[in-house]
C-alpha cells in the first residue's frame, strides 16, 4: 500500500493543488457568505487567488522534497514502465496537459482585457494651516449647553448629511450606493475617530473640492458646506456626528 502510494506521489500533489483551486473558486465564496452572514457569495479576489495557488504549489514541492526517498518517488513517476495501465494513462495526460496549461496562461495574459482602474488615494491628508488653530467653541461650555448643541447638531446631521452618511452615521444612506467613493462610515474607528475636531471642521467646510490632489478630490461627493452652513452650525454638527457614530475625536497633542 505504502509502496503504491509513493509511486503516485506526483499525482497526489497535483490532485491536492487542483483541490485547492476548486476550494478557492467554488467552496470558499459560499463559506464566507455563511460566516459573514452576507446575502451574496464572496468570490476570492483574483490576485489573492494567484498567491494562494503559488503558495499551494510551493507547499506541494516542499512536501515532495522532505526526504530524498520522497523526491526520488516524486520524479520517479515520470520514468517509463513499471506500473499499471492507469499510470501510463496519467503520464500521457500529464505530458499533454503541461504544454496546454502553459498555452492557456499565455492566452489569458495576451488577450486584451479592459484594464481595471487604479484609484489610490489618501483618506486623511494634512490639515491646511489656516484650520490648525481653530477650536470648537462649544466643547468648553457647561454640560447643559453641550447637550443642547449635540441635540441641535444631530438634527442638522439628519437633515443634511443623512442621505449619504446614513442616519446612524454608518455610511449607508439611501444615496450612498451611487458614489463609487463611498460616503465615509463614521462608526469605523479608522475615520473621524482618528482626527481632531477642527480637521472635521475643514472637511465639512471645504468638502471634496477642498482636498489636495493626492486625495482625489475629483471623485469625492462630499459637498462643500461653506455657503450653506454657518460656522456655529458646523461645530454643532460635528458634536452631533461624533455622538451619533458613538466615537470620540482624537485629543489634541499638547503644544510645547
Amino acid at each position, binding site marked *: 500500500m505504502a509502496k503504491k502510494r509513493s509511486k503516485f506521489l506526483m499525482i497526489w500533489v497535483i490532485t491536492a493543488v487542483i483541490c485547492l483551486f476548486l476550494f478557492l473558486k467554488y467552496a470558499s465564496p459560499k463559506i464566507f457568505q455563511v460566516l459573514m452572514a452576507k446575502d451574496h457569495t464572496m468570490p476570492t479576489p483574483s490576485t489573492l487567488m494567484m498567491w494562494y495557488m503559488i503558495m499551494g504549489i*510551493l507547499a506541494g514541492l516542499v512536501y515532495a522534497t522532505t526526504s530524498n526517498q520522497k523526491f526520488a518517488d516524486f520524479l*520517479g513517476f515520470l520514468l517509463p514502465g513499471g506500473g499499471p495501465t492507469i499510470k501510463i494513462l496519467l503520464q500521457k495526460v500529464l505530458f499533454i496537459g*503541461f504544454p496546454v496549461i502553459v498555452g492557456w496562461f499565455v492566452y489569458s495574459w495576451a488577450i486584451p482585457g479592459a484594464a481595471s482602474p487604479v484609484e489610490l488615494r489618501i483618506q486623511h491628508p494634512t490639515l491646511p494651516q489656516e484650520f490648525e488653530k481653530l477650536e470648537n467653541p462649544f466643547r468648553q461650555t457647561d454640560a447643559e449647553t453641550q447637550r443642547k448643541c449635540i441635540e441641535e447638531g444631530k438634527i442638522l446631521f*439628519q437633515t443634511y448629511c443623512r442621505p449619504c452618511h446614513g442616519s446612524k452615521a454608518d455610511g449607508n444612506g439611501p444615496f450612498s450606493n451611487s458614489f463609487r467613493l*463611498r460616503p465615509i462610515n463614521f462608526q469605523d474607528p479608522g475615520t473621524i475617530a482618528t482626527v481632531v475636531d477642527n480637521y472635521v471642521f475643514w472637511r465639512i467646510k471645504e468638502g471634496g473640492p477642498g482636498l489636495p490632489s493626492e486625495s482625489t478630490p475629483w471623485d469625492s461627493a462630499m459637498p462643500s458646506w461653506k455657503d450653506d452652513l454657518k460656522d456655529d452650525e458646523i461645530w454643532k454638527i460635528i458634536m452631533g456626528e461624533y455622538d451619533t457614530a458613538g466615537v470620540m475625536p482624537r485629543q489634541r497633542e499638547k503644544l510645547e
Partner: protein
Amino acid sequence: MIKAFKSVLISLGLIVLMTGAFVGRSEVSAQTSHLFRTYKHEVPQKLSETSEAIAEGKKVYEKRCWYCHGIEGKGDGPASKTMFPKPRNFTRNEYKVRSTAAGSVPTDEDLFRIVTSGIEGTAMPFWNTISETERWQVIYYIKTFNEQFKKDTAPKVVSVGSVASTPDSIKRGQELFKEVKCYECHGEDGRGNGPLTVALQTEWNMPYRARDLSKSWNFKGGNATEDIYRTISTGFNETPMGSYLEKLSDEDRWHVAHYVKSLSKDMASDVVVKVKLSESEQLPIEPLDENWGKATPVEVPLAGQILASPRHWAPSIDAVMIRALYNKDEIAFLVEWDDSTNKQEEIFRDAMSLQFPTKIPESLKKPYFAMGDSSGAVNLWSWKAHWSEGFGSIASGAPETEAGAVIEMNAKGFKNIVTQPPESQNVTGKGIYQNGRWKVVMKRTLKTEDAKGDIQFEIGKLIPIAFAVWDGSNSDVAGQKSVSSWYYVSLEKPVPKTVFVYVLIAIVIGASIEMWFVARLRRFPPKLEEGQ
C-alpha cells in the same frame, strides 16, 4: 542538491506568504460594500410587554427615533424636512409591512422585522445595530401612540400552503395581473407607469408612486416570493396599494406573486462599460435595434444632486442602464432608464446627459465629477425630450418616438456651462418612450475636429464617463437632477491574430522544456543519487 533546492523553496514561500497577506487585505476590504439591504425574517424570543419595558423603550425612542418620527410619534420630527417618504406617523395606522388584514395593526413580530431590516431607499435605517431587547422595548413604546393596538387582537393572514413557481403559474399570474387591474397602477411591464399612477402624480398631485416591480431591491417588505405574496394579501395601509385578500383566492395570489417575482431582475452593476467592436458599417441609431443585444449592459445607481444648492432631496430616477458599440469611425451609446411618465412641462423636461472629460486623463487626475471645475473641463452630450402643448399623454402601449434635441456643451463647474457653436455640434441622437422606460441613443464619430472641446475616443484606454437624468414630471430642471460619480468606458481591442502565434510558441516551448526534462530524468534516474 536537494537541500539547496529546499531552502530556496522555503524562503520563496515565506516571501509569497507575506506579500499574499498584504495584497489580500487591501482587496478584501474593497469588496465588502454590499449594495442593498434585505428584509430579514427571523424573529427571536419575545420580551414580555411590561410597563418597565415600555419605559425603557421610551428612552430608546427619545435617543434614536424621535428626531425623525417626532417626540409625539406624529412623523414630524425636526429632521424630517429632507425626507421623502416622510417618517411613519405612529398615531395613525399607516403601517405598510404587515402580515395582518388591511386596516389592522401589525403584529409585534411584523414590527420587529421591519425595525430590524429598515426600509431600502428611505431614511428608515436598519436597527440590527441595537440589542434585541432594546428593539422589543422601543416597539412596545411606539405601540402606545396608537389606541388601536389595544383594541385589535391583530388577525393574522393565514397562508394556505404554497404553489410552486412554474411557467404555467407565472402565465396565470400575468393574466390575473391584468384581470384585477394591477397594471392600472404598476403598468404593463410593471415599471410603475400605469395610467392611474400617472393621474395620481400629475393631476391629483399625490406623492404616491406605484413601485417599479422590475427593481425588486427597492421592495420595502422584502422581495422573496413569500414576501410578495404577503404584500399582495395584506396591502399597505393608507396607500393606493390595497389588499387582494378578498379579490383573489389564495392560490391566485401565489400565481400573481410568482409573476411579480419573474419581473424582477438583478442590478448588473460594474465600473467599466465595455464597448464592443461592431463589424457592421453602420452603428444602430434606433433605440429598438436588435444589434444592441450584442453589447453588455452596465447599470449605474443614481443619487439626487445634493452637492450644491439648490439640492434635490427627492429624485425619482434611481438608475440608468448603458450599452455601447463602436466601429472604425463611430461610437454609439444606448441609455435606458425607468420613468413612470413621459409627461413634462415646458421647463421641466425629461432629459439625460453623458459627461466625459474633454481629454482622456493621462494620470489619476480627472475633472471634478459634478460638471468639472476650473482646472478640468468636461464635455456634455445632452438629450432633451421634445415638448409641445398636450404632449406626452400616452402612458403605455405603442412606443412613442420623441427624437428630442441633442446638444453638445462644455462645462467648467455648474456655473460655467457653454453650448458649443453650431459647427462643433456633432452628436446625433434619438429617444423612444415605451411602457415606462426611456431608451435614448447618442452617436458620434470617434474623433472630431474640435479637439479642444470634444472627447476624442481611443481604443483600449479607460475613459471616464458620468451620467445625469432629469424627470420632468418630478419638476427636475438644471441642478435638480439625478447624478452618478465617474465610471469608465473602454473600447475593447479585438483579439489580435498574433495572440494565437504567441500561444503556439508558448506551447512549443513548454513541450520542449518538458521533453528535455523527462529525457534527462530518464537518463539519470533519481534513484542513482540515493544509491551513492
